[in-house]
């Protein structure tokens, strides 16, 4: 299998789904001629033209709403937000219309809202955000965050084919830093299923996105200290795969939740709640959250480095948990 980057995997999924299904079209800022701020949509404009790859004006509200209407009429829009940070500008059409439409009106709305997501590149408070919890708390949306090129392609194809609105966040830190083997043909990775990215017995590290490689690195290092970690890569943040989480927790009895989003009312809180609700008797130690603190994402490297969890912070927390 060819090795490609995370970014190329995304690009491939877009190319192949656009080719396979002519109801699929894309819209967003600078996705056409430029190929996107990160080049995720490179080559699409040349191949499919402005009819299907549309550089919109700056109007996150209207173009998200347009996607709602187009999906309602049977198309499959893929909306790109230039950064996940700007999804708050198109918030209303997503949380009020897209999320509630099937429940209220019984018509499917197959839309993917994509965005480069997360920190690690010293891009400051408005180009580093992780807003997935807002959407996980909003019933009716699926939320997907892949952690590697294989999943990125397979999950994106699944998201495009899904009949529901899917928020698809791409850890931009991994765009070029992560490569991996990816089948050249189209394939799917099921939404709603977590992946055991690393097996272990002592601690369950439950995480997603760009923290998965950190967790795996940490696990390998911890292994040398005879601490065996299981890494659960959630992949789909909403709806959560409680089964896989609980299976792991029942085995290890110790839980470390890890994410680069802020702590309070984040996904980690939900996982802690699910575990303490459903695997109480299996727990041998307090549930530990390793997350960003409750601050905006600071720009300066010493600050962002302290803000964003990494393998070191995981190792430290895992050791405390292990020796609890």
């Amino acid at each position: 299998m060819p090795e490609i980057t995370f970014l190329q995997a995304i690009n491939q999924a877009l190319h192949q789904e656009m080719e396979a299904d002519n109801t699929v079209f894309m819209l967003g800022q600078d996705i056409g001629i430029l190929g996107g701020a990160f080049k995720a949509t490179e080559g699409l404009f040349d191949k499919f033209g402005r009819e299907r790859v549309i550089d919109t004006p700056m109007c996150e509200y209207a173009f998200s709403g347009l996607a709602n209407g187009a999906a309602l009429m049977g198309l499959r829009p893929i909306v790109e937000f230039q950064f996940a940070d700007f999804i708050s500008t198109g918030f209303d059409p997503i949380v009020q219309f897209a999320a509630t439409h099937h429940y209220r009106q019984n018509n499917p709305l197959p839309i993917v809202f994509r965005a480069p997501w997360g920190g690690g590149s010293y891009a400051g408070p408005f180009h580093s955000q992780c807003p997935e919890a807002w959407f996980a708390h909003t019933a009716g949306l699926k939320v997907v965050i892949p952690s590697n090129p294989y999943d990125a392609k397979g999950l994106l194809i699944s998201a495009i084919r899904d009949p529901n609105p899917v928020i698809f966040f791409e850890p931009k830190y991994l765009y070029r830093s992560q490569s991996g083997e990816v089948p050249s043909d189209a394939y799917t990775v099921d939404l709603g299923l977590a992946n055991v990215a690393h097996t272990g017995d002592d601690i369950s590290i439950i995480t997603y996105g760009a923290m998965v490689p950190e967790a795996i690195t940490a696990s390998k290092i911890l292994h040398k200290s005879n601490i065996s970690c299981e890494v659960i890569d959630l992949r789909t943040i909403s709806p959560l795969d409680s089964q896989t989480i609980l299976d792991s927790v029942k085995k290890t009895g110790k839980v470390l939740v890890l994410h680069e989003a802020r702590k309070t009312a984040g996904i980690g809180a939900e996982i802690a709640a699910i575990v303490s609700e459903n695997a109480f008797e299996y727990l041998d130690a307090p549930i530990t959250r390793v997350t960003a603190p409750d601050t905006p994402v600071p720009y300066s490297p010493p600050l962002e480095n302290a803000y964003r969890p990494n393998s070191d912070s995981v190792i430290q927390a895992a050791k405390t948990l292990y020796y609890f």
Partner: protein
Amino acid sequence: MLESDKTDHIKLLYWMMLTRAVDDRTISLAKLGKIPGTIFSQKGHEAISVGAACALSAADVVAPMHRDLGAYLVRGMTPGRIFSQAMARSTSPSQGRDVNTHGMGDIELGIIGYVSHLPQAMTVALGAAFSFQYRNEPRVALTFTGDGASSEGAFSESLNLAAVLKLPIVFILEDNQYAYSTPSKYQYAITDLAARATAFGLPGMTVSGNNVLDVRRTTIKAIHRARNGGGPTLIKANTMRMEGHALHDSAEYVPKELLDKWKAKDPIANYKKMLYEKKVLNRRTEKLLLEQINKEVSNGEQWAENSPYPDPSTLTEGVYA
């Protein structure tokens, strides 16, 4: 006057009368405590929603707002389903899940249900229009908004995006001089909201919103333009909201003289008068119309009342497709 024109005139009258009758009956039902939620008064808006909707072809779609009961009826939504929605029954377009005209969509009838956030329906209509353009279908989207909602960013973004993409869409702005209690002077600082259109590169027109023929004629032109690749149009229809904003609102903030002035312009009474003068309408026809409407309304009410409430066990069904 041709017989077909006569029928056509009678039809417009029928739809307006039916709209008012359904509105009146809904208010009565609410007063009887049979409607758990609130309802929005339609009085004054009948000519707009009916006139504009009657300009559509069967394959077109409409994305109404909360004063467009007439558009729902014209598109084929039965009074029964409308009452059922108000009475929160499982037979309603939202299966009892959404309130009054919110979420009263039926895609088979070409009606897109709106969410409360104004004027978000405009953006959804953009998408419908886009899908027609994308598939090269000769279809048009029609959507409605209010004078108040024209201050929201979504309104301007929609006009701009429609103009840039040259979408087959017609926007009707129902200027009823108030947004809830807020009069126009606190809402905008220009004299004619139709000017907004020009600033975004689409034609803006003004019609008398109390004249169903005027509304329909102008909408037909705009739809024709849209259908033939000419792009979007904004039509501003002037009228007056003749009741409170919603059921509970006594609207004391509206000067009585203003209401009196507009009472004389009632879209149904005046149209009827004109039809009498033109001999299109006579007592007998009017009586027949009234009987038919009463029957439809009563049957609808009956049907709705006999409809079951949704089963609480279905509460969590259908969040996802």
